[in-house]
């Protein structure tokens, strides 16, 4: 499986986790941390929907992977495109590392940077319509350059 995988619709959490575990369990990585994001039932939404700009997502991810490698760690990520219903997963991130503290620090820093920088746009689904989640979105660095 690729280190960064995008899927149409909700993620199959168990298949992805088990696939990553199978692939890496014999690689002498002592710590394997996964973060699973699950769509919450709130504000009367029917689900979430996502657009992704893949060229910049790929380069953002590759930069993180290079940073992880300098600490002998590996980052894995899966994300949904399109619609994801309530209680299904849209995002899974993982860190493998020989060292516990490296893995714990990386999963935190990676997930927080993902939230701030990954070129992904989120929409609430209400009444079958996509409504841009502008109140939860974060402007990228250097935003407003052409304002």
């Amino acid at each position: 499986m690729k280190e960064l995988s995008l899927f149409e619709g909700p993620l199959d959490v168990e298949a992805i986790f088990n696939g990553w575990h199978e692939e890496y369990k014999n690689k002498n990585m002592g710590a394997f941390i996964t973060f699973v994001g699950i769509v919450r039932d709130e504000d009367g939404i029917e689900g979430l929907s996502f657009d992704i700009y893949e060229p910049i997502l790929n380069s953002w991810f590759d930069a993180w992977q290079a940073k992880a490698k300098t600490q002998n760690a590996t980052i894995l990520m899966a994300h949904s495109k399109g619609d994801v219903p309530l209680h299904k997963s849209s995002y899974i991130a993982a860190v493998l590392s020989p060292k516990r503290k490296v893995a714990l620090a990386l999963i935190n820093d990676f997930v927080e940077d993902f939230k701030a920088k990954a070129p992904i746009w989120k929409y609430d689904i209400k009444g079958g319509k996509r409504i841009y989640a502008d109140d939860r979105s974060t402007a990228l660095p250097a935003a407003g350059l052409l304002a």
Partner: protein
Amino acid sequence: MVKVEFLGPIGLEDIQIEAATLAELGVKLQEKEELKPWLANSAIAVNDTLVNDKNMTLKDGDKVSILPPVCGG
């Protein structure tokens, strides 16, 4: 001519436009009323690399992407 693409929720079709620098492109895009609020909080990529220099020169065939605020996960 450069190609401008409006990502995510902006919801406009790609356009071809004449502009020698990012600043010049900015002036032309500001003429479109519906784009003003997006430009205020969008980042800019040239050929899929995020940029932060408004004086950057553009050449024929460059792709300029407008990236509004993000929220993955």
